[in-house]
């Protein structure tokens, strides 16, 4: 198989910098801190049933932290990739080789994704600890890791699309974070305050539960599924059940939560996963088109 040269070269360069092991170590340390803190509390006073919940909460925290770190790290990684080539003045050299815009975007994306996947997998040992204490099955752990990787891919493609448009890395990074905020926050705001929100109250839960899953899902506002938090909340609620109880108590964090519960958390998580994958594919196509457009503009500009 012919390896994408941009992927090969970028990966080689990334793994040679001192930053890479530092980021990996810091990332693992942050996750292990939370995991061990939970475990010490778990074993500190003898194992009791009540502590099982503590352990499950630890799993939720570690997973949420993984998501948070991914959302912070991924756009920064991909936003500098193409804009960095322009800033370094190496983009012209790439253009004269005749390498296509699609290969450039895919090469950069693959390399960034490989690094993010490594980060996520480096957090896996911390999550594995909860396999012992919180009763999280290996299949559930794998499902969570896959979900995190899809979210990471989505976040990377946001950065990549912006990077294809921007000439400076700093502009690309700012724009990428703005786009991420818009994607996550916008979907959440729409779910909470949008025209559909009023439909999903606890009073309507019983009525909703009489409807079929497909009907509820189709009634939900589409942008909700593109919000990474919605998918992760559904996945964790499906896996642990704790989130469900916490949500019931604190309520109103997500009005849409009622619909998520009625439709079934597993189904919402699946649709959300598909939406993230779709969004990643669309954003990649957008990045290729944007780079092609910028290429033409650069040609005219000279």
């Amino acid at each position, binding site marked *: 198989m012919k390896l994408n040269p941009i992927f090969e070269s970028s990966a080689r360069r990334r793994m040679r910098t001192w930053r890479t092991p530092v980021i990996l170590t810091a990332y693992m340390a942050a996750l292990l801190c939370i995991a061990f803190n939970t475990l010490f509390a778990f074993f500190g006073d003898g194992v009791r049933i009540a502590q099982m919940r503590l352990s499950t909460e630890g799993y939720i925290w570690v997973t949420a932290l993984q998501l948070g770190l991914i959302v912070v790290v991924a756009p920064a990684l991909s936003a500098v990739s193409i804009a960095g080539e322009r800033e370094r003045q190496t983009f*012209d050299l790439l253009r004269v080789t*005749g390498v296509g815009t699609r290969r450039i975007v895919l090469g950069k994306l693959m390399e960034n994704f490989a690094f993010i996947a490594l980060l996520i997998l480096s957090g896996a040992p911390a999550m594995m600890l909860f396999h012992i204490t919180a009763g999280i099955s290996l299949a559930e752990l794998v499902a969570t890791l896959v979900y995190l990787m899809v979210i990471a891919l989505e976040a990377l493609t946001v950065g990549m699309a912006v990077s294809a448009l921007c000439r400076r890395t700093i502009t690309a990074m700012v724009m990428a974070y703005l786009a991420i905020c818009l994607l996550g926050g916008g979907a959440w705001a729409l779910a909470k305050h949008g025209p559909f929100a009023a439909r999903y109250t606890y009073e309507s839960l019983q009525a909703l539960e009489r409807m079929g899953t497909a009907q509820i899902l189709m009634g939900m506002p589409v942008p909700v599924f593109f919000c990474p938090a919605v998918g992760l909340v559904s996945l964790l609620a499906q896996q642990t059940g704790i989130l469900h109880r916490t949500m019931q108590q604190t309520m109103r964090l997500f009005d849409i939560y009622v619909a998520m519960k009625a439709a079934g958390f597993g189904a919402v998580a699946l649709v959300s996963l598909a939406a993230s994958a779709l969004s990643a594919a669309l954003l990649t196509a957008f990045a290729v088109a944007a780079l092609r457009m910028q290429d033409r503009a650069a040609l005219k500009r000279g």
Partner: protein
Amino acid sequence: MIECIELVKRYGKTQAVDHLNLHVDAGEIHGFVGPNGAGKTTAMRILATLCAPTAGDARVDGVSAVHQPQQARARVGYMPDFFGVYDNLKAWEYLDFYAGCVGMDAKARRKRIDALLDLTALSGKREAYVDQLSRGMKQRLCLARAMLHDPKLLILDEPASGMDPVARAQMRDILREIARMGKTVLISSHILPELSEVCTSMTVLQRGKKAFSGTMTELEKRLHGAPLVIRLTQTPDEELARRAAQRLSELLGSAPAMEEDVWRIETQEDVQRDAQALRMLMELGVPVCGFAREHATLEQAFMEVTGAYEAQSHL
């Protein structure tokens, strides 16, 4: 190999290239000379398919760089006036990366990279990190990169800028070797003697227009001839000097300007007449120790051509 037809490039109100017509034969090392902002880099970028002209066409080996950029790219190796190197990459990996980008398969790459490192005298630096190479080495590595896909035409924008004399000499030798390989080279430089030593032909650009284009011999002919300079071991007596001046004037059609032991005659070059003049001086007993045509340097030629062009455009 290179053909520019009525090439025009405008940036707003600025005319970077103004109806440039250019023809360069295969196998030539063609110099591109002109003051800053003359349009050299723009014209080179058009030929390298990195810039679209406002009007006209630029062809490389019969292929339009404007309308068939992909085909043209296969024929052109471009080296810009900046380094364009990545950090954390070894010299061979840098070349391997671009070889992959041009679509060379892994087996062919290694052989080609070794050959190019050898050609650019960088074999010893194969495992060295690119960002730790000296400026001259980086330039040579960029030249090797431009040659990866074995292009027929090499476009080198200021390849010797910022190099020390040793590095410049090395670059000159490499260019000669490349010319021996049958490649056509289009090279721009501000260091004019560099060009005069390697170029077979030259184009002088001024404000986007062609002020001169032709072989180096043609460029010299454009000047007021190379003066004949006669150096004497000692100042001859007045009578001998008068007689010699008269005979030289009759023979060459121009009187010498005499400054003690150096006589200078502004006249067209003619080997036969020059030989006669030397024989005559020897017969008269003039103590000649030097007898040669003083050819103009490229700087003089450049100033002459651009000066003449400026004067013409002000009329």
